């Protein structure tokens, strides 16, 4: 169909306006059809099961057993944080398995987005560390869990051992409030991480974090900290670069950042604060309206496998929920990553991020955004 010819034909009176309009409509329908087609194509690939997860987990290394069984990878869709994930699910995105964490598990369950997991359908379940399953808010009806734990670790301070002078003092969360390093502190932008650090600093027990008093006290310490902060970012690459250049001397981070920087030869340490590091556990949950339930269980089983665990420990420096994954490493390697063969010890030594309600999250984020903006 030649557009030029059509216009010519209309001008010459050979083609009626109606015929011209028909062809215009045909073009429109054609255009619409292409979008429908891609939609259908996407829907087809979605029958392989969709894993909706944090960026960095959307990689084939975690789905080796899945691929061996089905010959293809699941559909991997990344999000940046739980708020974004909720917004997208609200807007109608359909997935089978989600990646919640204990800090936000409560809001997912409250919004009635999950279904209980039938653990008998998971071949790796007997090897899962029980302390990770037995979390507050993880008890679904019939003794089933809402979330199968997958990865866990600690948030703490990554600091430059050559630039940050501890003056012989013990490592502590006060390091992020040290006025000597004004303008050289890095914090995470997501309240889901930073707010809990504020709670530790303000001395608020995690089970009272949603009281009015706690809000006031945490907000006060966060406001006190703001002038010291160089940048609030969730982009761990920028934070690692800032640490490497000395622009930032101490930053709240995942231990993967410390592992990565040490690998590059930057003199950093991952602090063991005396108040306890912030421990988080993330896992896999099946969405209530999961269209491919069988594949969903296979996705979770693949995440819990020893192959995935070995990758998580080796490359990301995170703990894994399968106790046999730790047997793949010797004690020295694990110690170098800040892990041990008996992960339960490490877990209990930290401050366990609790399950928080949707109301708490919204209120906390509102205060947190205002504080970051300087109010």
């Amino acid at each position, binding site marked *: 169909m030649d557009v030029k010819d059509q216009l010519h034909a209309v001008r010459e009176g050979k083609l009626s306006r109606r015929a011209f309009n028909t062809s215009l409509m045909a073009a429109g329908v054609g255009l619409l059809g292409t979008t429908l087609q891609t939609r259908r194509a996407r829907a087809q690939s979605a029958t392989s099961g969709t894993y909706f997860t944090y960026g960095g987990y959307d990689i084939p290394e975690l789905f080796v057993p899945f691929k061996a069984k089905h010959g293809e990878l699941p559909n991997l869709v990344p999000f940046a944080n739980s*708020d974004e994930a909720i917004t997208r699910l609200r807007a109608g995105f359909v997935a089978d398995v989600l990646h919640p964490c204990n800090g936000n598990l409560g809001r997912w369950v409250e919004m009635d987005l999950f279904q209980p997991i039938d653990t008998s359908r998971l071949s790796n379940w007997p090897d899962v560390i029980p302390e990770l399953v037995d979390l507050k808010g993880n008890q679904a009806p019939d003794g089933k869990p809402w979330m199968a734990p997958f990865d866990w670790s600690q948030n703490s301070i990554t600091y430059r051992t050559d630039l940050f002078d501890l003056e012989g003092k013990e490592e502590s969360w006060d390091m992020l409030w040290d006025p000597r390093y004004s303008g050289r502190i890095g914090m995470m932008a997501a309240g889901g991480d930073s707010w809990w650090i504020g709670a530790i600093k303000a001395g608020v027990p995690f089970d009272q974090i949603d009281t009015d008093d706690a809000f006031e006290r945490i907000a006060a310490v966060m406001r006190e900290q703001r002038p010291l902060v160089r940048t609030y970012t969730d982009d761990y690459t920028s934070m690692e670069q800032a640490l490497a250049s000395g622009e930032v001397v101490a930053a709240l981070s995942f231990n993967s950042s410390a592992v990565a920087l040490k690998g590059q030869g930057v003199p950093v340490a991952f602090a063991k604060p005396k108040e306890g590091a912030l421990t988080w556990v993330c896992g896999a949950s099946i969405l209530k309206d999961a269209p491919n339930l069988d594949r969903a269980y296979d996705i979770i089983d693949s995440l819990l496998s020893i192959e995935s665990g070995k990758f998580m420990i080796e490359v990301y420096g995170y703990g894994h929920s399968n106790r046999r994954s730790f047997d793949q490493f010797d004690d020295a390697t694990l110690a170098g990553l800040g892990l041990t063969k008996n992960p339960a010890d490490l877990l209990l030594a930290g401050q366990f991020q609790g399950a928080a309600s949707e109301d708490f999250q919204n209120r906390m984020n509102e205060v947190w955004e205002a504080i970051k903006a300087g109010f």
Partner: protein
Amino acid sequence: MTQTSSIDPKVTSRPTRTSGRIARLLYRNEGLRGYLLMSPTLIILTVGVIIPFLILLVISFWTRAGVGFDTTPSLANYARVVNEPMFGILLGRSFWMSGIATVATIAICYPMAYFVAFHVHRNKMFWLILITLPFWISYLLRVFAWRVILGYEGVINSSLVWLGWIKAPLEFLLYSPTAVIITLTHAWAAFAILPLYVSLEKIDKSLLVAATDLGDGPVARFFRITLPLSMPGVIAASFLIFIPTTGDYITPALLGGPDGMMIGNLIQAQFGSINNWPMGATLSIILMLWIAAVALAFLYLTRLAQARIA
């Protein structure tokens, strides 16, 4: 297209009654023909701008209730914007920052456009393409490039340290309002150069010759002839830059640091982590109203100034 039945003379000479009536109506009514011609644009405008705007307007009168919305109309969000200083201050800061960026962009681009319009006589197109060349790269990549330039160990800081002019890297370069203004100025330059060039190019050169003949020096000639006649371009460029940069989100998010946050970041947070869509909608509406007000005031002032010159 194989449908050729309309060529059949019988059909064209004896149309059915309804289509005949429509044809007559179209023939007589010029406005209707115009609307028909514009219909694709109008449809896109309706579906893509007007309907979303109305949805935004309606949502702005709702309030958040837990996970969902309370849909009883209320002015609570607007009251909050008035009562809580944070919103006003961020709005003011956004206007201030994008205002400086607009002035800086025009100040930098005017000489470039002037040069191409008056001093380049051959291959003008080539020059224009050359000027817009950096804008062939994605906006996001340019913002990232500025991080590399302004960064702590960036190009500027490393060179200054190497030259021995400063001892420690300048920290105000990145994660500050300055960084946002510099980046906006560069990123939107193409939108200023082209309207400025067009308005300068249109100036009748004989007017300049006449001014010189009547005794104006180059400076007086510029302020009496060139600048007033290029004002339409300056105004167009100011609007093209000021309006989109006021609500900019990604530049302050990547370069602004804690003190460089603008209203766009707060609107994003309302739709994202704060999860208060009605508040986000309210802020968007208020931002639009303020931009419209500022733009109208600017237009009025320039009209006034032009009337005085004339």
